[in-house]
């Protein structure tokens, strides 16, 4: 075997084996990029980032293997190639993220202004967009109604899902023990996390249109309201809240509960006064993550709340828009067809920037909450 001959030969020389200088991989990487760029330039007659990247990756891997195999031996060479490939997988995965964020910030930032944030699409006409594209007027329309809709629907979804989620988690951790119901709930919560978001939307729609059919069969389409959307989001949010809360509650030390029981405190008071305050930071940060997850949902909103053009503060009647459905609607069904569709697209990107910023802030908030509110370590 190669391996044995490898070790014997190195043992005969010294205890340490030969090693390439630390900077070698970087030198090889830079060299292969240069070579790849050259090949792409000669082969295609022009510079192409994609072709260069693919070629550079391949040349780099081969070069690293060849150089290392010649100097350090085959095993080290394989190790180096594996490291190179794995690292480039990471770098490659960052490319879409950077591209997406860059596009959102540059395209959205160019279009976003206070007018867009404070106006709705009520009375929006194709002519206005054509004037904008012709340079005769500013960008009309806006998504104030969508921001209001997003906030209202998300808050309603929180009101429904946080109590259910947290109480169910308490049941699982404090009461269920190992009984069958607890196991069934745990399993179904896992299953529920996998429900496609559009199916959750269809469920809420089916639920309310069945109810509406029974109560008032003559009023068609009454099932599409902000509240229906909130129910759809709750279906997606509850499992996340349960999972996160459950995880945190299990981390609360048993000693705390036992100390409380020993003092004669009833079980429910122990939970409310001891267990929950200890884990409040984790629960809140879990809830924030759940909000961040559902606030960007599009599919369940569009099948439950429709696409509204006007401001609607009433969750229980009429269509509503949220930022994600606004983005979808603007991009795929522009106000003005043809060249002026670009105006709708610009509004969509501006709304996307607001939405991405919102989600990032929520994610950051979750981290801050977890850090700031965390109970002081006992030891």
């Amino acid at each position, binding site marked *: 075997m190669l391996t044995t001959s490898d070790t014997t030969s190195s043992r005969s020389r010294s205890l340490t084996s030969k090693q390439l200088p630390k900077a070698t991989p970087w030198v090889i990487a830079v060299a292969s990029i240069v070579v790849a760029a050259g090949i792409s330039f000669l082969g295609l007659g022009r510079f192409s980032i994609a072709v260069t990247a693919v070629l550079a990756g391949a040349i780099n891997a081969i070069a690293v293997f060849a150089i290392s195999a010649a100097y350090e031996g085959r095993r080290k060479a394989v190790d180096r190639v594996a*490291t190179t490939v794995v690292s480039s997988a990471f770098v490659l995965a960052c490319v879409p993220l950077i591209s997406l964020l860059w596009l959102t910030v540059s395209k959205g930032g160019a279009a976003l202004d206070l007018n867009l944030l404070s106006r709705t699409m009520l009375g929006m006409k194709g002519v206005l967009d054509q004037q904008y594209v012709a340079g005769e007027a500013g960008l009309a329309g806006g998504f104030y109604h969508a921001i209001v809709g997003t906030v209202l629907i998300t808050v309603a979804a929180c009101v429904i899902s946080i109590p259910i989620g947290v109480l169910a988690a308490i*049941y699982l951790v404090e*009461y269920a*023990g190992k009984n069958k119901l607890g196991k069934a709930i745990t399993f179904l919560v896992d299953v529920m996390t996998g429900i496609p978001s559009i199916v959750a939307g269809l469920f809420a729609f089916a639920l309310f249109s069945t109810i509406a059919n029974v109560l008032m069969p003559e009023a068609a389409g009454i099932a599409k309201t902000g509240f229906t959307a909130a129910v759809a989001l709750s279906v997606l949010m509850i499992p996340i809240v349960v999972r996160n809360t459950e995880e945190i509650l299990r981390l609360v030390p048993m000693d705390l509960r036992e100390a409380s029981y020993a003092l004669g405190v*009833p079980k429910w008071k122990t939970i409310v006064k001891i267990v929950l305050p200890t884990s409040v930071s984790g629960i809140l940060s879990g809830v924030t993550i759940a909000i961040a997850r559902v606030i960007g949902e*599009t599919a369940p909103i569009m099948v439950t709340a429709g696409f509204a053009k006007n401001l609607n503060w009433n969750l229980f009647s009429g269509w509503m828009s949220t930022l994600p459905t606004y983005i979808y609607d603007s991009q795929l069904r522009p106000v003005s067809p043809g060249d002026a569709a670009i105006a709708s697209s610009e509004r969509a990107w501006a709304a996307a920037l607001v939405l991405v910023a919102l989600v990032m802030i929520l994610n950051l908030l979750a981290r801050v909450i977890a850090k700031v509110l965390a109970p002081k370590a006992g030891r």
Partner: protein
Amino acid sequence: MPTSTQTTATGPAAGAPGPALGPAVQGTRPKAVIRPGDRIFSAATLIAGILILAILAGVALFLLAQSKDTIDAQISDPSAITGGNGFLAYVWPLVIGTLVSSAIALVVATPFALGIALFTTHMAPRRLAPALGYVIDLLAAIPSVVYGLWGIALAGNLTEFYLWLSKWFGWIPIFAPAADGSVSNTGRTLLTASLVLSIMILPIITSLTREIFLQTPRLQEEAALALGATRWEMIRMSVLPFGKSGIASATMLGLGRALGETMAVAMILSPGLLTASLVVSGNQTIASEIAQNFPEAAGLRLSELISIGLVLFVITLLVNMAARAIVAKTSVKGS
């Protein structure tokens, strides 16, 4: 898995107040007083738990109830259903499109996810690793509609690549160009949608496999290194075999996510009839079919869309249950 072991650890203790008494005194122990507060609180938590069961049952039930018109039509007059050949003929191409796009997404995403998970757990500088993991989590945080917007904006750049693919690999049916030798000139094909999908499911597979790789017994890793293994040999000998089943279930969960993903496909794909080629426009997925047609649907069409939603629900349910079953099986063996 840690959760299951913790259940056994805290389970019996949480069951009854005062488990510290031990078995010897259990027989003579005075009965605990049950206060009204306890009753109300435990009932509230129980109701919340049962509500979750009810919701899941409700999803299936109400979708079925709203599918009634489609089932009636299928029995009495199959030609009334879109396509004119009954429900099966309508849903079949959609199921294929869904499975194909998810499979492509999975094939592209899994190697990357494994690489990234290995990179952040075993190869990156230890101080940098959490920050790098956070970067990948950012990918998961971005709303799917923004991915769709991004995909539309960049899809055009892929036409050149598709032209090249169809020129050199056109003999493979999935890269075959249209009859006149052209490919989609907008780039909005199933392959583009699948590639965007793969980016979207990358973070979930990565974070699950990362957790599994972190659980590799430290001693096994160090033993391998101490025997003179290089880092890659250590990964191959101890990390990968340990995480094998975890990787399988992570990919299954990624598959479940890809199957149900709606917006990216609905926005990027310009839908059409089922075709084998992925570089011309055509094909459609269930979720995207619902999203694109639901706003204008009414009557039987509405019921049809809800019933294909039910089909999607059943498919994802099966995939997710399979994934959980793998996890359950291995967590016993692993502990």
